[in-house]
């Protein structure tokens, strides 16, 4: 990818301005703002569009889309450092002017709306819609202002950089952040303070989810403006955290270091027209098709990198911004990270809070959501437990363990046992409450209390009468050894029938 090959110095110095100029060249003037003009036409859609359609606040983010067009220019940029310097200084006041004039138009529009509100009083529904419209437009204007102002920031910085002579101009990439000396920081901090003021303003204006995203974008833009190191394409699926086993001699590769905010940014590819963010370049290209036919050409849709690979490949490795980390280039035994994705995962895993908690076990925490998902696939499966406390993910491993060690037993999960036990008890309890307790089957003496069983109780007591269970008449060899006397027979079933179920006295005492 061509953009990768561009040196960070250039990126930091002039990417934004040069690309802005390109925008002005490549796009019809005013094209980015067409959606904004449509605001008066469709109210319903306006509300959502207003935030997604603003032109990108930070131009560097648009490289994915415009990389193709930039190609020739970037090649130029790569050549001599003097040319770089020329380009560095070349920020486009015309573009800014056109932006500002557009903003002026926009403000007029808002004025019109407000006037119309004043003229047509009373209709509450329209009023609300129009108020929203005004809010949205104002927000948009503010964002536009910030981004326009943002284009100035690198210029200020570059001006300063070029003033402090050799290092920056020779383009030793690795030194860039270090080169940001105290003075620059002062300047930058002023800018940052401004930006943060805008942030707060926007926060006040929107408290919705879109607003949050927007603020993030703004934060990103500010961060990128201040450091402006290009963010790599994410299509490379390399989950290896480091480059273990890779022994590149120090100096044989260039080292990039992204800042924390960049690493943690949710999206790295932004639509130049509407500003929507994407994680993948390909997704952005798909998205761009919606903005017009010119984005539907095969060239526009093609993956924009491969031609550039004919260039002599510069091996690029990454450093973790966390000072003291082994992956930080300041570390004595520095081990660089291979890809951006490695950087992201490493930084999140090692230096961020573990904010994703497993919903199943409630104990395991992860900072990378993919790790959580991987864990959740196995969480709870690790149920093969030995009495010694060792757990196994596979039953055969547990049984191998148990077979090997004397006295070790497969442990049946206690809650499992309890549950089954409970259910057994419940069953018993149910029957007990129903009737059996009264039958003398359950001599735990579970007295039934509910009225429902009362009617049965009488019948049950009679049971002792029907088939008297007096002790000697019963037998313990499985046979009833002595028939009861004839008197018993004449007495039991028939007297029962005559007396009814409730009126007799149990014979137990008599026996």
């Amino acid at each position, binding site marked *: 990818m061509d953009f990768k090959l561009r040196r960070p110095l250039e990126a930091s110095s002039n990417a934004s301005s040069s690309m802005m100029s390109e925008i002005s060249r490549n796009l019809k003037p005013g094209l980015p703002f067409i959606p904004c003009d449509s605001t008066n036409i469709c109210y319903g859609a306006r509300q959502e569009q207003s935030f997604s359609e603003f032109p990108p606040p930070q131009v560097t983010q648009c490289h994915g889309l415009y990389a193709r067009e930039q190609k020739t220019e970037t090649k130029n940029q790569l050549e001599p450092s003097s040319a770089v310097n020329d380009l560095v200084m070349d920020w486009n006041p015309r573009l800014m002017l056109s932006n500002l004039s557009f903003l002026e138009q926009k403000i007029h529009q808002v004025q019109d709306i407000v006037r119309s509100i004043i003229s047509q009083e009373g209709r509450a529904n329209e009023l609300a819609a129009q108020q929203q419209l005004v809010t949205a437009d104002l927000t948009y204007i503010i964002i536009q202002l910030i981004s326009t102002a943002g284009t100035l920031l690198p210029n200020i910085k570059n001006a300063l950089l070029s003033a402090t002579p050799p290092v920056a101009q020779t383009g030793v990439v690795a030194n860039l952040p270090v080169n940001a000396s105290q003075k620059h920081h002062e300047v930058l901090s002023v800018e940052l303070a401004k930006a943060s003021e805008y942030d707060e303003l926007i926060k006040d204006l929107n408290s919705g989810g879109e607003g949050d995203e927007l603020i993030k974008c703004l934060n990103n833009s500010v961060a990128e403006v201040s450091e402006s190191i290009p963010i790599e394409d994410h299509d490379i699926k390399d989950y290896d955290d480091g480059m273990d086993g890779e022994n590149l001699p120090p100096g044989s590769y260039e080292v990039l270091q992204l800042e924390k905010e960049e690493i943690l940014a949710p999206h790295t590819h932004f639509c130049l027209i509407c500003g929507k963010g994407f994680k993948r370049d390909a997704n952005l290209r798909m998205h761009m098709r919606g903005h017009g036919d010119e984005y539907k050409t095969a060239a526009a849709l093609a993956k924009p990198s491969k031609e550039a690979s004919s260039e002599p490949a510069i091996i690029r490795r990454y450093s973790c911004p966390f000072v003291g980390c082994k992956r930080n280039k300041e570390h004595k035994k520095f081990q660089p990270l291979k890809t951006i994705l490695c950087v992201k995962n490493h930084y999140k895993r090692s230096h961020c809070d573990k904010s994703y908690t497993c919903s199943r076990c409630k104990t395991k925490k992860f900072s990378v959501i993919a790790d959580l998902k991987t864990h959740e696939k196995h969480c709870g499966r690790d149920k093969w437990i030995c009495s010694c406390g060792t757990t196994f993910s596979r039953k055969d491993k547990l049984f191998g363990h148990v077979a090997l060690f004397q*006295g070790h037993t497969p442990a049946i999960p206690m809650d499992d046992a309890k549950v089954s036990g409970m259910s057994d008890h419940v069953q018993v309890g149910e029957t007990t409450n129903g009737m059996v307790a009264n039958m003398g089957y359950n001599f735990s003496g579970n007295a039934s209390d509910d009225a429902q069983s009362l009617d049965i109780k009488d019948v049950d007591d009679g049971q002792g009468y029907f088939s008297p269970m007096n002790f000697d008449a019963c037998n313990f060899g499985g046979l009833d050894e002595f028939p009861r006397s004839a008197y018993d027979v004449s007495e039991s079933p028939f007297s029962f029938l005559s007396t009814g179920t409730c009126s007799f006295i149990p014979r137990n005492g008599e026996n």
Partner: protein
Amino acid sequence: MAKSRDLCRRIDRSDGFATLTLDLFSGSPNPNPCSYSRSAKRVRVSCASPAAAAAEENRSNPFDSLSEEVLFLILDRLESDPLDKKSFSLVCRSFYAAESRHRRALTPLRSGLLPAALARYPSVSRLDLSLCPSVTDAALASVGGALRSSLRSIDLSRSRGFSYAGIESVAVNCAALVEINLSNATDLSDAAAAAIGRARNLEKLWLARCKMVTDMGIGCIAVGCQKLRLLCLKWCLGISDLGVGLVAVKCKQLRSLDLSFVPITEKCLPAVLQLPHLEDLALVGCLSIDDEGLMSVKQESKSLQVLDMSNCQHVNHAGFSSLLSKTPELREISLAYYCKVTHSLASSLQKLYNLQSIKLDGCEVTTSGLKTMANSCRSLGELSLSKCSGVTDEGLSFFVTKHKGLVKLDVTCCRNITDLSLASITSSCTSLTNLSMESCILVSREGFRLIGQHCHLLEELDLTDNDLDDEGLRAISGCHNLSVLKIGICLKISDEGLIHVAKGCPNLQELDLYRSVGITDIGVMAIARGCPLLQIINLSYCTEVTDYSLRSLSKCSNLNTLEIRGCQVSSSGLAVVAVGCRKLTKLDIKKCYFVDDAGMLLLARFSQNLRQINLSYCSVTDVGLLALASVSCLQNMTILHSGGLTSNGLAAVLVACGGLTKVKLHSSFKPLIPKPILEHVEARGCLFQWRDKPFQVELEPSEVWKQQSQEMHV
């Protein structure tokens, strides 16, 4: 003391008990034998009052002079009959106490009586709860508490209602526990298995149909009960190779292992065969074991003696031969419902020098296979070819001439064999004790004559559905040792033949005359007179049989099973049987239309040991049934189409019969009986079977039935 020693000697010498009783009574000046015969409770009550007790002592009971040693000796001789022991315990207080201390085995009818029973019998070692359909955890806890040191064996195979907690209390408290039968506890889970695992001294464990137990549970048992000698895991569908493998690793003492219908593969077989003492292995219906698997097993077992591989449908002779070559000491093989028994399979038996018994029920047997088997085996004692197709005179004759020591032979439904086979069997196997040849319809009078002539040692003979006549029966009566004779559906036999049997077979205990319609009262009376040991008789659909037969049968005091379906008997005849046969436990009087409430009243009064009764089509009403409800042993009732029965009466009976486990009723009653009552009875452990059979008034003519059965055979 001298007197008691003398008594000991006399007891040792004496054959009967009656003599002794007479001696005691003649020697005592003031015989007062039955002062405590009322009930246990009464005894305890009188003891509780000191004055009464003193008064009793003053009377100087002559039985008190007998030492416990003597009483135990007497009791030892009473083991055969529980009724005698009961009488003994009711003689006096010391007898009662002696009996309490002497009893080792307890088979209670209700688990509700367990605490009291355990208090009375503190040294019970064998507790059979198979008659208690409902056993609660509390009951088991009382067992664990009362029989701490004595209990060795407990049978819960027919009980429900307990959980793992109950098992645990028994397993933990009873240190001497050696046997547990938990078969059919389908709702018990691994927790129960873990509880069993705490019975460290367990040697025998049955877990048939414990479908919820998994490898984890059996793992706990394997680790906990390392002294296991017998383990039955039949139908434990939750157990796999891992569990069985662990058992084989941990329980090195195993002698007998039943893995029937367990979803195991050949993977656990090496470990199982490695068990140093394994003698008995059942692999019935293990469908996951196939030829290739068996051939891959390399482990030998020098100890295995009994192998049951019935119903292993995926095993053919190749795999089986491979397994047999690893188990040279086999004595018994069962291959029921197996593949075709051919030459190649039979020849694989050649190296089994000790083979005694082969069971090939339901297999297809070829003549060459049978001949090869005859040549391969040394000397078989038992051969079962029941329901085998392809058994011919040639094969069977060849076989029996090679194996003259045959003791048991089963050729049920081998319809092709004729007198020729019988001639070889009778001439070669003179030591035959069991011969089953049901439905061997080609065998004629000559064949039966030969049986009677040569097989004098026959004890069990099954000639059901044969072409037997009085001459044949006369010949068979020469087998004087016969104890079981089944001659059902022999339409040609009559009283004459039966009289011969009665004269010739005094030891007859079981007689089956089902649908042998030529039999009348005369024949039955002869049997009743000639065979006093008779325990089981089936006279179903012998339509000539009347009350006279029952009167004569009432002299057979050992009779416990009486089936008289469709006989022309009445209540009076039944009453006489009830009075005479006190051990009657199973009674089938279906379609005895003349039996009514009067018969039930007397039955209820005298047959207190009745467990199973079929009253379908009888003229019994609510009254009779309620009277029957007082039989506390009653467990199994079938009442279909009893005209005088109402739903209310039935409900009352169901509630009154506390011990019911299975009731078969007509489905028209189901909506009529109040649901709470049904639920209540079910909660006590009773199972209802609702049948919707149409009412059949006329008796099926036996001739028609015979024709049907013959058509079926062809």
